[in-house]
């Protein structure tokens, strides 16, 4: 069947000049890869079946049937998927029962994501995911699972490096230290002279500049991300399912029963200690393994064609290209433990890369958990300006602090009261209520940290906003990427004269919040970020044209003449 002329089903679009390009199938190797991959997934269950010797259990073997169905679906997908790449568009046709025809104009391509799991790597095949600028729910990205590596590499280069045909997409290098340049330009970009050699910009061929690569010592940040805990839970869940299917009682497995016997002979405090140490060791090992699998060989580079390029992965490799024209900022994330050991993660805010959604999930990674100063350096290089990273954030006022405490303590106290009522009227033991009282000081600490982390600044055409405690985030968003402003006030906020400002954007998380600003400060910030807001504001004629940083700080805080720097 392979190699025969492709039969076009009825209802195809009318022939055009572009039809000269033939429709192509995915690589034949995928017929081997997909079933093999499914079989490998099935191996743990097979092992359990063989060693437990209970294969003759009752009920149909759902696992086997499921695997067979997935393999059959894979073959059908291979047989029904066709693609072609013409000079103007990428077209994909797929589906057996409901035929789908996806067309992506090539100048709409914003991100290209190339990944390969180990089996694909053996056969030199890759999966290509092409992201467009749209971030709506009903737009899906185009997936081509099973392209030869060389085709994918050429495709990516062709799609994203159109610098020679479209010179206006090239960022114009501007020397840092000339903020006046920013005023009129619609898409201004500053270049850090330290990272971009002027000679390379003039070179005829696309030149790649390495920004950062993985330092093996960063792996010690892995346990602090607690990613191992998630993996551990997933593994336990999987093991549970496998054991269930094989109808094995976990207590009958040698290792488990030995451990349980051992724990029964030791006192309870030692049990807790042993289990605790065991869990910590396991989570650490899994976190490190996860970090290695995901980020081994991590490398972030900038192509002079105007893209950022990320490669990473130990077994499954992944290469993501982000068009810099679509970059709207960066997002620095510090979960509590990672923050405690001085680490941070960095991700890109770019249109076409909707954070944590769909096929582009994980495509926004700019830096794995690494030392905070590395994150700051990468942020400055990627944004081509160190100003947002170095910006002194303006703290919030007293009302915002009060609100943090009120919220944290009210929630905790309500739970405590409910537990106390349950103890009084019901069967709840009293020590639970006593233990729950210890949550109150932690709630106060949380509120304190949440307030201290709140801060914002507008620097060099970027909005910087920081918030959160358990996961502290510091987002830097280019003002030109802000497509709308929401000013949100609950009844409590109105009473306390507080406003939460939310900047909406087509990139990343789609919205970035600056919570609990004083009313006047929120209005000034809204006008600064989105000047059309000014026509709806009364009581102030205009914002001073070019306030010095100290004055502007006071302005943003709504405290004329008073400048208070964060402690």
């Amino acid at each position: 069947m392979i190699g025969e002329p492709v039969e076009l089903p009825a209802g195809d679009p009318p022939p055009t000049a572009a039809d000269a390009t033939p429709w192509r199938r995915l690589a034949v190797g995928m017929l081997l890869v997909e079933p093999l991959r499914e079989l490998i997934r099935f191996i743990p269950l097979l092992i359990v079946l063989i060693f437990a010797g209970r294969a003759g259990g009752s009920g149909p073997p759902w696992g086997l049937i499921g695997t067979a169905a997935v393999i059959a679906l894979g073959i059908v997908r291979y047989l029904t998927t066709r693609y072609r790449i013409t000079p103007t568009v990428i077209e994909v046709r797929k589906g057996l029962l409901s035929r789908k025809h996806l067309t992506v104009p090539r100048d709409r391509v914003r991100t290209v994501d190339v990944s390969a799991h180990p089996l694909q790597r053996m056969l030199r095949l890759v999966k290509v995911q092409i992201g467009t600028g749209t971030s709506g729910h009903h737009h899906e990205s185009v997936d081509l699972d099973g392209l030869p590596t060389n085709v994918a590499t050429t495709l990516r280069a062709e799609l994203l490096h159109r610098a020679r045909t479209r010179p206006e997409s090239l960022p114009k290098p501007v020397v840092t230290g000339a903020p006046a340049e920013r005023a009129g330009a619609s898409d201004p970009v500053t270049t850090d002279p330290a990272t971009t050699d002027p000679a390379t910009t003039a070179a005829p061929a696309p030149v790649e500049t390495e920004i950062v690569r993985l330092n093996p010592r960063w792996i010690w940040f892995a346990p602090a991300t607690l990613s191992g805990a998630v993996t551990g839970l997933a593994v336990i869940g999987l093991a549970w399912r496998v054991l269930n299917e094989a109808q094995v009682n976990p207590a009958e497995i040698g290792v488990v029963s030995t451990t349980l016997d051992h724990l029964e002979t030791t006192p309870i405090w030692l049990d807790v200690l042993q289990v605790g140490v065991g869990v910590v060791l396991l989570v650490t090992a899994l976190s490190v393994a996860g970090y290695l699998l995901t980020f081994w060989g991590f490398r972030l580079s900038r192509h002079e064609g105007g893209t950022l390029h990320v490669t990473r992965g130990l077994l499954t490799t992944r290469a993501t290209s982000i068009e810099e024209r679509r970059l709207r900022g960066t997002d620095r994330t510090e979960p509590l433990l990672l923050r405690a050991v001085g680490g941070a993660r960095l991700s890109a805010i770019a249109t076409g890369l909707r954070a944590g959604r769909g096929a582009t999930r994980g495509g926004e990674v700019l830096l794995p958990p690494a030392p905070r100063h590395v994150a700051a350096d990468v942020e400055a290089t990627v944004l081509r300006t160190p100003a947002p990273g170095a910006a002194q954030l303006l703290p919030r006022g007293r009302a915002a602090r009060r609100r943090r405490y009120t919220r944290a303590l009210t929630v905790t106290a309500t739970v405590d009261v409910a537990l106390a009522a349950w103890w009084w009227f019901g069967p709840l033991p009293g020590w639970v209520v006593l233990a729950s009282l210890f949550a109150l000081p932690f709630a106060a600490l949380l509120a304190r940290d949440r307030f201290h982390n709140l801060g914002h600044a507008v620097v060099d055409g970027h909005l910087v906003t920081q918030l959160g405690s358990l996961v502290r985030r510091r987002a830097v968003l280019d003002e030109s990427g802000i497509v709308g402003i929401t000013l949100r006030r609950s009844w409590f906020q109105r009473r306390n004269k507080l406003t939460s400002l939310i900047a909406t954007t087509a990139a990343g998380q789609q919205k970035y919040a600056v919570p609990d600003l004083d009313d006047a400060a929120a209005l000034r910030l809204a006008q600064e970020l989105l000047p059309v807001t000014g026509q709806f504001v009364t009581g102030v004629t205009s914002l001073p044209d070019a306030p010095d940083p100290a004055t502007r700080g006071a302005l943003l805080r709504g405290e004329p003449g008073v400048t208070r720097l964060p402690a």
Partner: protein
Amino acid sequence: MSTSQSVTPALRPPTNLVSPRAVYCWFLRALAGWLLAIAAQVVAWVVDWPVPPWHAQLLAVTVVLATAHLIVMPRWRYRVHRWELTDDAVYTRTGWWTQESRVAPLSRVQTVDTERGPIGRLFHLTKVTVTTASAAGPLVIDGLDDEVGIALTVSVTAAAQAVRDDAT
């Protein structure tokens, strides 16, 4: 320090109210929701499901909450809901307990959707949704007269096309 800071700045409300009939529309819509919740509880009581353990008390609380919501919400919401279209921006205010003012420049508007639900049709009311390239924060104007809604859709679409750039 600039002298223009002497007056406290304030966000003025958008100029246009929605149709007064929107009050009834919101009332009916909320009533439908509450009746559904009450019906579910009555069924649970009649069939004697064990899951909510205190059927009578729960039902009483629901009825009290529903009454308060139905009395307060529609009129409060009517006073809050406002909209305005200028040469270069759309401006809306929505909500009641939590109120949101949203501003989007016309140059960033991507689509304008018109929607008429079953209860909206009853009162000849239209809901207009103005979306930007962001999946968050569309501007929703609920409870417009049909004619006003159509006129607004036409003018926003025309204005957005006139100034539209890449919009992302």
